[in-house]
């Protein structure tokens, strides 16, 4: 039952990614060209909704579906890993035109070369795991 819940939420997410065109390489290129408001509108309105909702959760001390306290774990302090990692991610996002969510969605939509992108994303994650002790964080 729980599995089904996450499967359905994932399907809804995949449909949103595809139909919003956030999974389109063209939209990502256009975003980095500052040629259209579309992607900024998506991220901005998601954020506006998100900020309001998280504030409500915190101030009203809302409980989860199972009645537990909602804890949003804070990210670890620091800046190097966020900045350096972020830049590397951005380079990949600009080139492949897809972040991890859309990579999955596009495979389902039938764009098979994205399987290669996914395989190398897993490899990249693995190499990060190996190099992690040597990298500035």
């Amino acid at each position, binding site marked *: 039952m729980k599995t089904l819940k996450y499967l359905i939420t994932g399907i809804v997410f*995949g449909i949103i990614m*595809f139909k919003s065109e956030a999974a389109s*390489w*063209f939209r990502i290129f256009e975003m980095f060209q500052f040629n259209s408001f579309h992607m900024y509108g998506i991220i901005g309105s998601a954020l506006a909704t998100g900020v309001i909702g998280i504030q409500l959760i915190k101030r009203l001390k*809302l409980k989860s579906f199972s009645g537990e306290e909602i804890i949003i774990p804070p990210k670890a302090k620091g800046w190097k890993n966020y900045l350096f990692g972020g830049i590397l991610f951005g380079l*990949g996002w600009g080139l492949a035109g897809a972040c*991890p969510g859309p990579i999955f969605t596009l495979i389902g939509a039938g764009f098979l070369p994205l399987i290669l992108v996914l395989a190398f*994303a897993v490899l*990249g994650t693995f190499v990060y795991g190996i190099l992690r002790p040597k990298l500035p964080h």
Partner: protein
Amino acid sequence: MEFIMQPWPWYVSGPLIALVMFFLIFSGRNFGMSGNLRIMCAALGGDKACDFFRFDWKAQRWNLVFALGAILGGFVAAEFLSTDTSVAITESTIEKLAQYGFTDGGAAYLPEQLFSIDSLSNPYTLLLLAIGGFLVGFGSRYAGGCTSGHAISGLSDLQLPSLIAVIGFFIGGLFMVHILFPILF
């Protein structure tokens, strides 16, 4: 129904993404797609290679199920919820793309040059896709999250590290598209 078959406007899509995040938060989970890449590494035996993949990935199986859903969602959207999947990017973007040899701007969902089946027989295209994927995987884990974990979840919670990461995303993306594209394409 007509509305659903069209591309969805940003003001519908953005709040819906936030609702997905809230649904996960109220389920006691966190919204983060790149976490799946780490889970896959662990599930594929990466735990034998280094500590970073030695964690109880089975406790995060829900996220893999969510990713499987994202794949199915892509199929459903493309097959049943779209009449025309061409992406109506702006005229100036189409012109810019043409300079780099992308001739199907405004007429497709993804550029043929990079993502058609034929492109898989071109070693240069394969190399670009591999590098792009590698950077997405390496960078998102190094930064501790991707667009969903930082740009949506982290910024919604007004976390400074996520702002730094998102600034990084844009530095990288702008450098790729403005400085490297003229060299690569």
